[in-house]
């Protein structure tokens, strides 16, 4: 396939992506639906120019690889060609986390109900994305699976709606639970294991310019067969954990310190250990959303 370019309109950003990998094109089209523009509009302002292309050289014939570029920078080592779409998604995350200064960006899932948002910052393996996928398909609006973009000096989070990244055992679970959802091809044997992306539902995309007020932060920890355990965090603890999960804390400096300390003063903070997603959903709805003003 010859190199082709397409545009992704993912409020608040526009990406223009060049690729010569059919798998990338097919998955982007499937995952982003109407946000995917096959024909590049040269008049359109583009925030980020990215490319994901096949590696060249002899290796290309016996072990084809994909390379990701942001402008001319190559932040990652090449990956196997079958991982190209996952690489593009990770590359888009890296691009925003490394360059955006307009928002305080926390590594976190974000879901909203009744105009109120809860952040779910968590390390890999905590079950964050499975929880995000479950909530996004059970009456909550997805703002992001990966990054909370907080407007500095406010408690407002703006959506950055993207596919949800599911790994290993979560893949089959999600396919069983959400039979009507759209899934990307599987990227096997990545550094995170097997990975798949699940497309956001259309209502999340339709409302991707509607911000939400943050009313809670929940640090989830999946524990097999565990009953739901809820621990309220004090402000000092919650602040430190939130700051550690903020991609651009050092770059924003004083602004991020003020934003996060003010935010912590106005929200409820919890750590939860769980295995039953319906129990978690009930806790979030009854104890955080309904009790917050």
């Amino acid at each position, binding site marked *: 396939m010859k190199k082709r370019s397409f545009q992704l309109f993912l409020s608040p950003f526009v990406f223009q992506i060049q690729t010569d990998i059919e798998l990338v094109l097919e998955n982007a089209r499937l995952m982003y639906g109407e946000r995917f523009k096959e024909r590049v509009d040269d008049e359109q302002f583009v925030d980020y120019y990215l490319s994901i292309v096949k590696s060249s050289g002899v290796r290309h014939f016996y072990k084809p690889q994909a390379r990701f570029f942001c402008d001319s920078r190559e932040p990652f080592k090449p990956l196997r060609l079958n991982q190209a779409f996952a690489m593009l998604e990770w590359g888009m995350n890296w691009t925003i986390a490394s360059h955006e200064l307009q928002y305080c960006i926390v590594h976190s899932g974000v879901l909203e109900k009744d105009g109120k948002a809860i952040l779910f910052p968590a390390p890999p393996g905590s079950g964050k994305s499975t929880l995000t996928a479950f909530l996004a398909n059970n009456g909550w609006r997805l703002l992001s699976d990966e990054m909370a973009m907080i407007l500095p000096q406010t408690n407002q989070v703006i959506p950055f709606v993207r596919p949800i990244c599911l790994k290993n055992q979560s893949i089959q679970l999600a396919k069983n639970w959400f039979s009507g959802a759209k899934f990307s091809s599987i990227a096997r044997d990545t550094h995170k294991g097997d990975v798949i992306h699940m497309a956001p539902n259309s209502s999340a995309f339709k409302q991707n310019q509607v911000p939400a007020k943050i009313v809670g932060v929940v640090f989830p920890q999946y524990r097999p067969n565990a009953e739901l355990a809820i621990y309220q965090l004090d*402000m*000092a603890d919650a*602040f*430190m954990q939130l700051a550690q999960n903020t991609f651009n*804390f050092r770059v924003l400096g*004083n602004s991020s*310190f003020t934003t996060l*300390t003010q935010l912590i003063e106005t929200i409820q903070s919890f750590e939860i250990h769980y295995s039953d997603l319906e129990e978690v959903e009930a806790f979030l709805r009854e104890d955080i959303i309904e009790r917050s003003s």
Partner: protein
Amino acid sequence: MFTLKKGMQLHPFSDQSGLSIYNPFTTEIITLRITLTQFESLLLDSGKACAEHAELHHVLNDLSEKGIIEASPSPARSS
């Protein structure tokens, strides 16, 4: 006697769980599990506080080494 260096941002949490200090010159954040009143007393009368609680000596040393606080002359005594 110590004082907070110019430019440091301090936020005491309203639930009294502690306070956080941001050093914009090094981008480091320190969180102490003491109230603002306790922190101010510690800076003001560090000798007494350290005599009563040995671990506070390390806290002050640490904050000083990180460039967050600085020693300042004690106020002159009136005769």
